[in-house]
Each structure stands twice: as structure tokens, then as C-alpha cells.
């Protein structure tokens, strides 16, 4: 077998062995080895006993035949056929293994035999013994099984030959009895092995199954689960180490949760501070800077009224235009920083306006649908949703090359759902989520701060869809019906 074949074989073997449960493996090993051992033992004993019994039977046959030959010599010489017959019959009666006995004279005539009526004449030729032979044994197949036919010359062959047939039936019976007893013993041993295997399986698999159960609990976040230490062995050590690991994991999890909470708090604080700052700047720009610029405009008009010279008019006109542009820019900046409308008219109006403005600015067809019903949302939630959509639109404008965009915000059972779809070039989500779209990350952060989720579905050439879902619970401070 080449190395390759061997490798293939071992691979298949492990596939076969690995595919079954530990219980099956243990049962297989225990039962297999018990069976192999018992059967090998039985066959060996059967074989050895058979040879011994065969030898014994042949030796007995030879002694019996020689005895007959010795005792029949004088009887043959004095022609006492009746006594010869008696000798044969008694021999057969005394030795149960003797199937037949007969005496052939030197001319091949049967002088006496133990068959009741007639004689199987083929038997005469089946075996012979020359005058100088000690004995001659031949195995003969008969209708009653195998028979060892022993021939012993009488009086050096001058008085004929004594023949005895030793049947193998009692030998077979002994063998069968022994084999049956061994078989029964094997059954008992097998039953014992099965019990032992069950016990072994139970001892081995119970802690393993418990480990699996506890591992699943830990995976679900339950760090209170513990494995019971059943025995003071390797498996017990494993259970101990496992429990130690769970305690350590639980401790780490507490630390992690604390840190996470801290981080969330920090992030919330930062966002709040940022929003407050933006709102302040936006108010400042709107209330103070815009008012100043408007006053400047009025001042400039008054100047042109007072001093009407073509050159001055020209300059003032330029200045007024400049101030007007700055006013627009300040307005846009203020809106972008913090649309006043969001605070004054709510999310629906703010979104509809800002999305429409965005479409106009970037010349992209926008479809916006906001349906919030009668729900009044808390400020931070409105801000978060507004910012997420704002960020999404910024991304689309920057990267998507989209021709149309649709924005949907809907109040659904259990929360708010926002869907932002575009028909742009899209991107491979997995590859570029973290590196290229830092904006996406901040969107996700915002959603998660509110215990919500943000899912991006996109692939190259098929546009992008962003699904945002934010739950509304008492925690998020929502008052229905207001």
C-alpha cells in the first residue's frame, strides 16, 4: 500500500470513527475487543481440543484393536468363532466410541463382526495392515460421520486382521458441548462488557455533556452557571479549570460592561455638548450675526439714499450684494449647524425641508416621506435621527453618484424606522464599512446609543439601502398622544 493510499485510508477511517458519538466509540471498542478476544479464544480452544480429542480417539482405537488382536489370536487358531464374536460384541458394548469391530482372515473373509444383519462389504477394502505393521489407521467418511478405521494384524497377519471403527460422534458432542458452554460464557461476558461500557460511557460523557450545556449558558451571557466536579480525576480537573475560566470571564464581562457604560455616557455627553454648542452658535448666527448683517444692509441703503453718486452707488451695490451673500451663507451655516425649525416645528418639517434643500443643492431627485403620527419625540431622539439622515445624504452626495434618493421615516409598532435608499454605484459592505465610511460608523454609534440598530445593504452597481430602527420605550422618554 503506497503512502497515498495509506493516507486516504486513515482519512476515511477517521471520518468514519469521528462521525460517531463518544458513546458509540466506547461501545464499539469494548464490544469489538470483547468479541474478538472471546471468539479468538473459543476458536483456539476448539481447535486445540479437537486435535487432542482426535489424537486420544485414535490412540484409544489403536489400544482397543491391539487388545482384540491379542485376545482373538488363540480363538482364531482354535476356530472358536462364537468367542470371537462375543469378544467383539463385548468390546463394542464397553467402549461407546467403537462403531464397529470385525475380523478378516488372511483370505479376506470376515470371520466375525458386530453388525447385526449383513455387513457393509465396501468396508473390508477400506483399510489393511501388513503382517509387520504395528497398526494402520485410516480416516473413513461414513453416512454417520467420520470414522477412524484401525487395522491391526493378528499373529503377524497369519491369523488375519482385527479392524475397529472409532466414531467421532462423542468427540463432536464433547466439542459442541464445550463450544456451547464457551458461547454462553461469552454472552455473559458480553453482557458484562455492555454494562461496563454503559458505565464508562456514562462516567465519561456526563461531564462532557454538562460542559457543553454550561458553555452554551456562558455563551448566552449567564456567568453564574457552574460545572459539577464529579470525580477527582482529569475530567474533574477540567471541570475545575472550566469553572475558574467562567469566573474570570464573568469578572471581565462586568469590567467590560462598566467600560461600555462609561463610554456610552461619555459619547452621549459629547454629543449633547456638541449639539448644545451648535445650537448656541446657530442661535448666535441667526439672532446676532444675521441681525448685524441686516442692519448693515439697511445702513448701506441709507448711505446710497444720502449720497447718490454713480461711483458710490456702484460700490454700495457691490457691498450690498456681498452682505446679502454673507447673510445667505450665515443662514445656511446656521441651519446646517442646527436647524431652528427642528426645535420649532419638529422632525417632520425639518426633514422635509432639509431633504428638499439638499436635493435642490445637489440636483438629485429626492422622495421624502415622514409619517410620525401623533408621537412626540424627545429632543435627543429627533436630533439623532436628523443627524443620521443628514450624514447619509452627505455620503450619497459625496460617493454614490445617485440619480434618485428616497427617504422614509415611519412610526412602527415598537419604534421608529428610517430607510434611506439610493440608486447609486453602491459598495461592498464588508470591505469598506470601517475604512472608507467613517460617517457610517458615527451613524451606527448614534443608533446604538439609543439601543437601536443600523443595517447597511449594498453591493457594487446596485445602490445602497440603510435601515435604521430605534425602539421607543419609556426609557427613551416618549409620550404617546402628545
Amino acid at each position: 500500500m503506497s503512502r497515498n493510499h495509506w493516507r486516504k485510508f486513515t482519512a476515511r477511517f477517521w471520518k468514519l470513527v469521528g462521525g460517531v458519538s463518544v458513546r458509540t466509540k466506547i461501545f464499539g471498542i469494548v464490544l469489538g475487543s470483547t468479541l474478538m478476544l472471546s471468539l479468538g479464544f473459543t476458536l483456539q480452544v476448539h481447535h486445540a481440543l479437537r486435535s487432542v480429542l482426535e489424537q486420544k480417539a485414535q490412540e484409544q482405537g489403536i489400544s482397543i484393536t491391539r487388545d482384540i488382536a491379542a485376545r482373538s489370536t488363540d480363538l482364531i487358531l482354535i476356530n472358536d468363532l462364537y468367542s470371537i464374536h462375543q469378544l467383539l460384541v463385548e468390546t463394542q458394548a464397553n467402549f461407546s466410541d467403537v462403531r464397529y469391530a470385525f475380523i478378516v482372515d488372511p483370505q479376506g473373509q470376515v470371520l466375525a463382526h458386530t453388525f447385526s444383519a449383513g455387513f457393509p462389504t465396501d468396508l473390508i477394502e477400506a483399510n489393511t495392515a501388513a503382517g509387520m505393521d504395528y497398526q494402520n489407521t485410516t480416516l473413513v467418511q461414513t453416512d454417520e460421520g467420520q470414522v477412524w478405521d484401525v487395522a491391526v494384524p493378528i499373529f503377524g497377519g497369519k491369523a488375519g486382521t482385527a479392524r475397529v471403527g472409532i466414531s467421532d460422534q462423542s468427540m463432536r458432542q464433547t466439542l459442541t458441548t464445550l463450544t456451547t458452554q464457551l458461547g454462553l460464557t461469552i454472552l455473559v461476558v458480553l453482557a458484562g462488557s455492555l454494562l461496563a461500557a454503559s458505565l464508562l460511557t456514562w462516567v465519561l460523557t456526563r461531564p462532557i455533556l454538562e460542559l457543553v450545556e454550561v458553555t452554551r449558558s456562558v455563551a448566552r451571557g449567564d456567568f453564574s452557571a457552574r460545572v459539577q466536579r464529579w470525580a477527582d480525576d482529569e475530567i474533574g480537573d477540567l471541570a475545575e479549570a472550566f469553572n475558574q475560566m467562567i469566573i474570570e470571564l464573568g469578572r471581565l464581562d462586568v469590567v467590560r460592561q462598566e467600560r461600555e457604560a462609561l463610554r456610552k455616557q461619555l459619547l452621549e455627553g459629547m454629543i449633547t455638548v456638541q449639539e448644545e454648542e451648535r445650537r448656541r452658535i446657530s442661535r448666535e448666527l441667526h439672532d446676532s450675526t444675521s441681525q448685524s448683517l441686516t442692519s448693515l444692509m439697511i445702513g448701506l441703503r441709507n448711505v446710497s439714499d444720502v449720497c447718490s453718486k454713480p461711483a458710490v452707488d456702484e460700490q454700495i451695490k457691490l457691498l450690498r450684494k456681498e452682505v446679502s451673500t454673507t447673510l445667505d451663507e450665515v443662514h445656511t451655516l446656521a441651519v446646517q449647524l442646527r436647524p431652528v425649525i427642528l426645535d420649532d416645528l419638529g422632525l417632520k418639517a425639518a426633514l422635509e425641508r432639509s431633504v428638499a434643500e439638499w436635493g435642490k443643492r445637489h440636483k438629485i431627485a429626492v422622495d421624502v416621506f415622514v409619517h410620525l403620527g401623533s408621537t412626540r419625540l424627545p429632543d435627543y431622539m429627533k436630533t439623532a435621527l436628523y443627524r443620521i439622515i443628514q450624514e447619509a445624504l452627505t455620503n450619497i452626495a459625496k460617493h454614490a453618484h445617485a440619480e434618485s434618493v428616497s427617504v422614509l421615516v415611519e412610526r412602527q409598532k415598537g419604534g421608529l424606522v428610517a430607510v434611506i435608499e439610493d440608486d447609486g454605484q453602491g459598495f461592498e459592505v464588508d470591505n469598506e464599512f470601517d475604512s472608507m465610511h467613517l460617517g457610517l460608523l458615527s451613524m451606527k454609534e448614534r443608533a446604538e446609543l439609543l439601543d437601536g440598530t443600523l443595517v447597511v445593504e449594498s453591493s457594487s452597481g446596485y445602490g445602497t439601502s440603510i435601515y435604521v430602527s430605534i425602539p421607543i420605550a419609556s426609557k427613551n422618554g416618549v409620550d404617546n398622544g402628545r
Partner: protein
Amino acid sequence: MFSRLFIISCLLLFLLVACVPSNSSQSLVYIDLNNLESLPTPQKKEVRPLRVAIAAVISPQGSAESYAPLLDYISQELNRPVERVQRRTYTEVNELIRTGEVDLAFVCTSSYLVGKKQFGMQLLAAPQVNGEVVYNAEIIVPADSSAKSLEDLRGKVFAYTDPISFTGRMYPTYLLQKAGEDPEEYFARTFFTYSHDDAINAVAAGLADGASVDKLVLDYAIKRDPALAEKIQVIHTSPPFGMPPVVVNPDIRPQLKAQLTDILLNTHLDPDGKYALQDLDYDRFVVVSAEDYQSAEAIESAVQCCQPEGK
């Protein structure tokens, strides 16, 4: 999953079973032990063999071995197969001679005396051993026995050979009856061995405290097995009696009788015959007459026992 494991296990098991060596793979002769047929009856031999009976002076095996070369020689000289016939007792052999079932018989002296009286058994010849045509009975005891004569064996175990054996039964009975004893009472127990060598062995083994045996057989046995001499001792030797003869039925064809006499008397002249005689320790066969058996006959008629059954 289990099913796949099961299949793998089965494959491994199969391998295990396959590894156990199996026997009986060689093709065996097949015989149906229950297909019984009647045995063929022995075919009548075309040439009727000369049937020769050997009385069980020694055990059947010993007789068969010792007489084989002589029977082969007779067969060769007669140009006719010879069949050896043996029986356990002298009486049975006598019966075979009487009915003509055997043509020639080597018998014991007493067998001849009984046969002659019953149906006129005829003498053909007798072996000559060590230049003698007579033999003796010897009473033996185990080597470590303190018995010095038959008198010392009172109340002991005594082994007879054959019920009508001359040396083995008639002679010791004669001795006891002459001394006014009843043999049935004299010994604690008696038994028959039906051959002289078995009687010798019984004494040597200590089964019997004494036995009366054919001296020729004893000498022959000691020659065969010298260790036997150390196990027994002879405490009495009888006067000589006529040698156990070779006999025939009175109705034998005269031509066959002459032929057989001729062969026997000339055996020692033939190299093969001489060889056959050596096996039996015989010098030669000689002609004997009824007179040679008178001393034995005197004892036979004096003894009150040992009659064949039914006579």
C-alpha cells in the same frame, strides 16, 4: 454507523475463522455403514487340503508357529495344501479324528490311549527327541517354593493342563491316588490351562504353587526363554512313557496312510524336512507300536479320572 461497524466486525471474524486450519480437506473413502449386505459364503476349495490337527500340548500360538515349517514340508512333499486345525482341548481334537474331519493329528499320549480305546485310533509314527522315543512328566514349583515333593503341595494351588492330558493330569492324579489321596481334596484349588506352556507360565508367575508338565515342552520352553529356568524348579520326574504320537483315523485310505508314513519317516533325510524338525527339536520320526505305550496305558487304566465327557 453501527451497521458499518458491524460489517467491519464481520469481516474481521471471517478472517479469524479463515485463519483456523481446517482438516479433512483430503478426499476420504465413503462408506455407508447402514447399507448391509450378506457376506459371501467362502468358496469351496478346488483341491481338498490335507487337514492336520495339532493337539494343544502347547498354546495355540506356540503350536501354530512351531509346526508351521513341518506342515509346509508335508504340503510340499504331498503336493497338496495342508490346513492346520487347532482346538482348545484334547477331547475336541480326538472328536475331529473320530469323525474324519482331520486326516492327520499330532496328539498327546493320553489322547491316543483314549482314542484307541474309543474308536481304534491308529499310530502312524512318533518323534524321536534326543535319541529317545520316550518322555517324562515333571512336577514343577516356583523357584522360591520350599516344596520338595508332591507331598509338600498339599493344600496348595495346582495347575492342570488338559483334562485328559497324560503328563499334565493323569500322572499327578495317579501319584496321589496311589498314595491314597483324593486329588479333589488334596489341593486347595486346581485349574486347567489347556496347554503345557501356559501351565509353566502359571507356575513361573506364582499363579499356581505347582504343575505337572511334559518334560519336552519344558525343555523347549526353557530353550526359547532361558530366564524361565530361574523362575521354576523341578521337584519330581516321572519314569519314561511312550512319546506323544502322530495318529490317524482307522478308516484312512491305506494309500494316504502309506504316503504320510513315508513322508514322516523320511523327513530327517530331506534338507527342508531337517530344518522343519529342528524347529520342533525333533531328531526324526520313527515307527512306534502300541507296545511302546503300555507303561502309560497301565497308568491310564489305573487312574480314576480323566475320562472324556459323556463317556
